[in-house]
Protein backbone atom coordinates (compact mmCIF):
# COMPACT_ATOMS: atom_id res chain seq x y z
CA UNK A 1 0.00 0.00 0.00
CA UNK A 2 1.26 3.46 -0.89
CA UNK A 3 1.78 5.61 2.21
CA UNK A 4 1.03 9.26 1.75
CA UNK A 5 -0.33 12.42 3.23
CA UNK A 6 -3.78 13.83 2.56
CA UNK A 7 -3.82 17.50 1.59
CA UNK A 8 -7.12 19.40 1.87
CA UNK A 9 -7.34 22.64 -0.05
CA UNK A 10 -10.20 24.68 1.37
CA UNK A 11 -11.64 27.39 -0.85
CA UNK A 12 -12.27 30.98 0.23
CA UNK A 13 -16.00 30.52 -0.54
CA UNK A 14 -16.28 27.60 1.87
CA UNK A 15 -14.38 29.47 4.59
CA UNK A 16 -16.63 32.52 4.16
CA UNK A 17 -19.68 30.38 4.95
CA UNK A 18 -18.26 29.27 8.30
CA UNK A 19 -18.20 31.02 11.66
CA UNK A 20 -14.83 31.50 13.40
CA UNK A 21 -15.30 28.49 15.66
CA UNK A 22 -16.45 26.30 12.77
CA UNK A 23 -13.31 27.24 10.82
CA UNK A 24 -11.06 26.46 13.78
CA UNK A 25 -12.79 23.14 14.45
CA UNK A 26 -12.62 22.18 10.77
CA UNK A 27 -8.87 22.92 10.66
CA UNK A 28 -7.99 21.25 13.94
CA UNK A 29 -10.06 18.11 13.34
CA UNK A 30 -8.41 17.72 9.94
CA UNK A 31 -4.87 18.39 11.22
CA UNK A 32 -5.32 16.07 14.20
CA UNK A 33 -6.04 13.26 11.73
CA UNK A 34 -2.60 13.87 10.22
CA UNK A 35 -3.76 15.87 7.21
CA UNK A 36 -2.31 19.06 5.78
CA UNK A 37 -4.76 21.91 5.34
CA UNK A 38 -4.28 24.67 2.79
CA UNK A 39 -6.61 27.65 3.16
CA UNK A 40 -7.11 29.72 0.04
CA UNK A 41 -7.80 32.69 2.30
CA UNK A 42 -6.17 32.68 5.73
CA UNK A 43 -7.63 33.32 9.14
CA UNK A 44 -8.32 36.76 10.60
CA UNK A 45 -5.95 37.76 13.46
CA UNK A 46 -8.64 37.11 16.05
CA UNK A 47 -9.24 33.64 14.61
CA UNK A 48 -5.49 32.97 14.68
CA UNK A 49 -5.46 33.95 18.35
CA UNK A 50 -8.29 31.51 19.10
CA UNK A 51 -6.62 28.82 16.99
CA UNK A 52 -3.46 29.05 19.14
CA UNK A 53 -5.55 28.89 22.32
CA UNK A 54 -7.64 25.89 21.24
CA UNK A 55 -4.59 24.08 19.80
CA UNK A 56 -2.97 24.33 23.22
CA UNK A 57 -6.02 22.72 24.82
CA UNK A 58 -5.87 19.77 22.38
CA UNK A 59 -2.21 18.84 23.01
CA UNK A 60 -1.73 15.48 24.74
CA UNK A 61 1.42 13.55 25.75
CA UNK A 62 2.37 11.00 23.05
CA UNK A 63 -0.52 12.28 20.92
CA UNK A 64 -1.15 15.60 19.23
CA UNK A 65 1.76 17.99 19.83
CA UNK A 66 0.40 21.08 18.13
CA UNK A 67 0.45 22.68 14.71
CA UNK A 68 2.92 24.14 12.29
CA UNK A 69 1.45 27.05 10.37
CA UNK A 70 2.82 29.25 7.64
CA UNK A 71 1.24 32.25 6.02
CA UNK A 72 2.16 35.62 4.59
CA UNK A 73 1.58 38.73 6.69
CA UNK A 74 -1.89 40.29 6.43
CA UNK A 75 -2.02 42.85 3.61
CA UNK A 76 -3.84 46.16 4.04
CA UNK A 77 -5.60 47.14 0.84
CA UNK A 78 -7.88 50.12 0.16
CA UNK A 79 -11.46 48.89 -0.14
CA UNK A 80 -13.45 50.74 -2.79
CA UNK A 81 -13.87 54.40 -3.70
CA UNK A 82 -15.20 55.71 -0.35
CA UNK A 83 -12.63 53.82 1.70
CA UNK A 84 -9.90 55.22 -0.52
CA UNK A 85 -11.40 58.68 -0.10
CA UNK A 86 -11.61 58.45 3.70
CA UNK A 87 -8.46 56.40 4.22
CA UNK A 88 -10.20 53.16 5.23
CA UNK A 89 -8.43 49.87 4.72
CA UNK A 90 -9.45 46.26 4.39
CA UNK A 91 -7.12 43.65 5.87
CA UNK A 92 -6.59 40.83 3.44
CA UNK A 93 -5.61 37.48 4.88
CA UNK A 94 -3.61 35.24 2.59
CA UNK A 95 -2.88 31.66 1.62
CA UNK A 96 -2.14 29.59 4.73
CA UNK A 97 -0.71 26.11 5.24
CA UNK A 98 -1.42 24.28 8.51
CA UNK A 99 -0.29 20.80 9.50
CA UNK A 100 0.64 18.65 12.49
CA UNK A 101 3.84 19.97 14.13
CA UNK A 102 5.47 16.55 13.95
CA UNK A 103 4.81 16.20 10.19
CA UNK A 104 5.13 19.66 8.66
CA UNK A 105 8.41 21.54 8.74
CA UNK A 106 9.17 24.87 7.15
CA UNK A 107 12.35 24.76 5.13
CA UNK A 108 12.47 28.28 3.84
CA UNK A 109 10.32 31.34 4.19
CA UNK A 110 10.72 34.48 2.15
CA UNK A 111 8.54 37.49 1.44
CA UNK A 112 6.90 35.72 -1.49
CA UNK A 113 7.80 32.04 -1.09
CA UNK A 114 7.09 29.44 1.59
CA UNK A 115 8.87 26.15 1.17
CA UNK A 116 7.72 23.30 3.44
CA UNK A 117 8.49 19.63 3.93
CA UNK A 118 5.81 17.08 4.82
CA UNK A 119 6.36 13.61 6.24
CA UNK A 120 3.82 10.78 6.51
CA UNK A 121 3.01 9.53 10.03
Amino acid at each position, binding site marked *: MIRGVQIDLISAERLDRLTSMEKIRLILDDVMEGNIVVLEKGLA*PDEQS*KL*IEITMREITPDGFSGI*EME*TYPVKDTPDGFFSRLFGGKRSETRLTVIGPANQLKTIKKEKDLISAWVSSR
Partner: protein
Amino acid sequence: MEFLVRTKQKISQFLKTLFRKRTCRIGIYGPPNAGKTTLANRIVRDWTGDAVGPVSEVPHETRRVRRKQDVTITGQNGNSLTFDIVDTPGVTTKIDYNEFIEYGFEKEEAVRRAREATEGVAEAMHWLREDIDGVIYMLDSTQDPFQQVNIMMVGIIESRKLPILIVGNKNDLPDASPARIKSAFPQHPVIAISSLEGTNMDELYEKMTAYFG
Protein backbone atom coordinates in the same frame (compact mmCIF):
# COMPACT_ATOMS: atom_id res chain seq x y z
CA MET B 1 -26.35 63.07 61.96
CA GLU B 2 -23.98 60.12 62.17
CA PHE B 3 -26.24 58.25 59.75
CA LEU B 4 -25.93 61.12 57.23
CA VAL B 5 -22.13 61.20 57.51
CA ARG B 6 -21.91 57.42 57.02
CA THR B 7 -24.25 57.55 54.02
CA LYS B 8 -22.19 60.38 52.48
CA GLN B 9 -18.98 58.35 52.97
CA LYS B 10 -20.56 55.29 51.39
CA ILE B 11 -21.80 57.25 48.37
CA SER B 12 -18.41 58.92 47.95
CA GLN B 13 -16.65 55.52 48.14
CA PHE B 14 -19.10 54.06 45.60
CA LEU B 15 -18.51 56.94 43.19
CA LYS B 16 -14.73 56.65 43.57
CA THR B 17 -14.88 52.93 42.75
CA LEU B 18 -17.20 53.61 39.83
CA PHE B 19 -15.06 56.27 38.19
CA ARG B 20 -11.58 55.09 39.18
CA LYS B 21 -9.38 54.77 36.10
CA ARG B 22 -7.87 51.31 35.89
CA THR B 23 -4.06 51.20 35.84
CA CYS B 24 -2.80 50.39 32.36
CA ARG B 25 -1.61 46.80 31.90
CA ILE B 26 1.47 46.24 29.76
CA GLY B 27 2.02 42.67 28.65
CA ILE B 28 5.43 41.28 27.75
CA TYR B 29 4.84 38.84 24.91
CA GLY B 30 7.15 36.90 22.62
CA PRO B 31 8.39 33.43 21.73
CA PRO B 32 9.86 31.12 24.41
CA ASN B 33 13.34 31.99 25.68
CA ALA B 34 13.38 35.55 24.35
CA GLY B 35 14.07 36.85 27.88
CA LYS B 36 10.61 38.12 28.85
CA THR B 37 10.90 37.28 32.56
CA THR B 38 14.46 38.65 32.67
CA LEU B 39 13.09 41.96 31.33
CA ALA B 40 10.12 41.92 33.73
CA ASN B 41 12.51 41.28 36.63
CA ARG B 42 14.86 44.03 35.42
CA ILE B 43 12.04 46.62 35.22
CA VAL B 44 10.54 45.63 38.57
CA ARG B 45 13.97 45.49 40.29
CA ASP B 46 15.00 48.86 38.86
CA TRP B 47 11.88 50.58 40.14
CA THR B 48 10.61 48.60 43.14
CA GLY B 49 13.53 46.40 44.22
CA ASP B 50 11.32 43.32 43.88
CA ALA B 51 11.15 40.52 41.23
CA VAL B 52 8.48 38.85 39.10
CA GLY B 53 9.62 35.25 38.67
CA PRO B 54 12.49 32.80 38.18
CA VAL B 55 14.42 32.58 34.89
CA SER B 56 16.13 29.62 33.25
CA GLU B 57 17.64 28.51 29.94
CA VAL B 58 14.95 25.79 29.76
CA PRO B 59 12.13 26.96 27.46
CA HIS B 60 8.71 27.55 29.04
CA GLU B 61 10.15 28.30 32.48
CA THR B 62 7.27 30.79 32.83
CA ARG B 63 4.13 28.71 32.56
CA ARG B 64 1.67 31.05 34.24
CA VAL B 65 0.87 34.69 33.55
CA ARG B 66 2.32 36.81 36.37
CA ARG B 67 1.29 40.36 37.14
CA LYS B 68 3.17 42.91 39.23
CA GLN B 69 0.90 45.80 40.07
CA ASP B 70 1.56 49.53 40.21
CA VAL B 71 5.11 49.85 38.90
CA THR B 72 6.06 53.49 38.32
CA ILE B 73 8.88 54.30 35.92
CA THR B 74 10.32 57.69 34.95
CA GLY B 75 11.99 58.38 31.63
CA GLN B 76 14.96 60.73 31.13
CA ASN B 77 12.44 63.22 29.75
CA GLY B 78 10.91 63.40 33.25
CA ASN B 79 7.64 61.73 32.23
CA SER B 80 6.31 59.03 34.54
CA LEU B 81 4.12 56.03 33.89
CA THR B 82 2.37 53.80 36.40
CA PHE B 83 1.32 50.42 35.08
CA ASP B 84 0.84 46.76 35.90
CA ILE B 85 3.51 44.62 34.27
CA VAL B 86 2.19 41.31 32.94
CA ASP B 87 4.84 38.65 32.27
CA THR B 88 3.49 35.94 29.97
CA PRO B 89 4.58 32.43 28.95
CA GLY B 90 6.32 32.20 25.56
CA VAL B 91 3.79 31.89 22.75
CA THR B 92 4.07 28.93 20.42
CA THR B 93 1.79 26.68 18.34
CA LYS B 94 3.42 23.42 19.46
CA ILE B 95 4.67 21.87 22.69
CA ASP B 96 6.17 18.41 22.99
CA TYR B 97 7.18 17.03 26.39
CA ASN B 98 10.25 15.43 24.75
CA GLU B 99 11.66 18.95 24.53
CA PHE B 100 11.91 18.94 28.35
CA ILE B 101 13.39 15.43 28.42
CA GLU B 102 16.24 16.80 26.28
CA TYR B 103 16.96 19.19 29.16
CA GLY B 104 17.32 16.24 31.55
CA PHE B 105 13.86 16.06 33.12
CA GLU B 106 12.23 12.71 33.97
CA LYS B 107 9.21 11.82 31.81
CA GLU B 108 6.66 12.55 34.56
CA GLU B 109 8.10 16.02 35.21
CA ALA B 110 8.46 16.70 31.46
CA VAL B 111 4.78 15.81 30.86
CA ARG B 112 3.73 18.03 33.78
CA ARG B 113 5.78 20.96 32.46
CA ALA B 114 4.39 20.48 28.94
CA ARG B 115 0.81 20.43 30.25
CA GLU B 116 1.42 23.58 32.32
CA ALA B 117 3.07 25.25 29.33
CA THR B 118 0.04 24.59 27.08
CA GLU B 119 -2.26 26.02 29.74
CA GLY B 120 0.06 29.03 30.09
CA VAL B 121 0.03 29.83 26.35
CA ALA B 122 -3.78 29.58 26.24
CA GLU B 123 -3.95 31.86 29.29
CA ALA B 124 -1.59 34.41 27.68
CA MET B 125 -3.75 34.54 24.53
CA HIS B 126 -6.83 35.07 26.66
CA TRP B 127 -5.17 37.95 28.52
CA LEU B 128 -4.24 39.55 25.21
CA ARG B 129 -7.85 39.50 24.05
CA GLU B 130 -9.33 40.69 27.33
CA ASP B 131 -6.98 42.46 29.71
CA ILE B 132 -3.94 44.01 28.04
CA ASP B 133 -3.64 47.72 27.12
CA GLY B 134 -0.17 47.77 25.55
CA VAL B 135 2.47 45.24 24.50
CA ILE B 136 6.22 44.93 24.68
CA TYR B 137 6.93 42.28 22.05
CA MET B 138 10.21 40.67 22.96
CA LEU B 139 12.52 38.97 20.49
CA ASP B 140 15.86 37.27 20.80
CA SER B 141 18.12 39.38 18.52
CA THR B 142 20.18 36.31 17.63
CA GLN B 143 17.17 34.47 16.17
CA ASP B 144 15.22 34.82 12.92
CA PRO B 145 12.48 37.43 13.56
CA PHE B 146 10.47 36.22 10.53
CA GLN B 147 9.29 33.09 12.39
CA GLN B 148 5.58 32.52 11.83
CA VAL B 149 4.67 32.93 15.50
CA ASN B 150 6.13 36.46 15.50
CA ILE B 151 4.37 37.49 12.29
CA MET B 152 1.13 36.07 13.64
CA MET B 153 1.42 37.61 17.12
CA VAL B 154 2.31 41.09 15.84
CA GLY B 155 -0.68 40.82 13.46
CA ILE B 156 -2.96 39.82 16.34
CA ILE B 157 -1.71 42.72 18.52
CA GLU B 158 -2.09 45.20 15.62
CA SER B 159 -5.64 43.99 14.96
CA ARG B 160 -6.54 44.76 18.58
CA LYS B 161 -5.17 48.29 18.01
CA LEU B 162 -2.86 48.01 21.02
CA PRO B 163 0.33 50.10 21.15
CA ILE B 164 3.32 47.84 20.58
CA LEU B 165 7.01 48.34 21.30
CA ILE B 166 9.34 45.74 19.84
CA VAL B 167 12.36 44.92 21.97
CA GLY B 168 15.34 43.09 20.53
CA ASN B 169 16.94 41.40 23.52
CA LYS B 170 20.29 39.60 24.03
CA ASN B 171 22.07 42.40 22.24
CA ASP B 172 25.20 41.56 24.26
CA LEU B 173 25.67 38.35 22.21
CA PRO B 174 27.95 38.40 19.13
CA ASP B 175 25.25 37.06 16.74
CA ALA B 176 22.72 39.75 17.72
CA SER B 177 21.20 41.64 14.80
CA PRO B 178 18.66 44.30 15.79
CA ALA B 179 18.75 45.52 12.16
CA ARG B 180 17.12 42.24 11.09
CA ILE B 181 14.29 42.87 13.58
CA LYS B 182 13.87 46.44 12.29
CA SER B 183 13.58 45.12 8.74
CA ALA B 184 10.96 42.55 9.82
CA PHE B 185 8.76 45.08 11.63
CA PRO B 186 9.45 48.51 10.08
CA GLN B 187 6.00 49.76 11.16
CA HIS B 188 6.90 49.65 14.88
CA PRO B 189 9.62 51.20 17.07
CA VAL B 190 12.40 48.70 17.83
CA ILE B 191 14.68 49.07 20.85
CA ALA B 192 17.80 46.95 21.19
CA ILE B 193 18.65 46.01 24.76
CA SER B 194 20.32 43.41 26.93
CA SER B 195 17.97 42.83 29.84
CA LEU B 196 20.56 40.58 31.45
CA GLU B 197 23.24 43.30 31.48
CA GLY B 198 20.80 46.21 31.71
CA THR B 199 22.08 47.84 28.51
CA ASN B 200 19.98 50.58 26.90
CA MET B 201 17.26 50.36 29.56
CA ASP B 202 17.08 54.18 29.77
CA GLU B 203 15.97 54.35 26.14
CA LEU B 204 13.38 51.65 26.79
CA TYR B 205 11.97 53.51 29.81
CA GLU B 206 11.81 56.75 27.87
CA LYS B 207 10.02 55.05 24.96
CA MET B 208 7.63 53.32 27.36
CA THR B 209 6.60 56.57 29.04
CA ALA B 210 6.10 58.25 25.68
CA TYR B 211 4.34 55.32 24.03
CA PHE B 212 2.15 53.84 26.76
CA GLY B 213 1.57 57.01 28.82
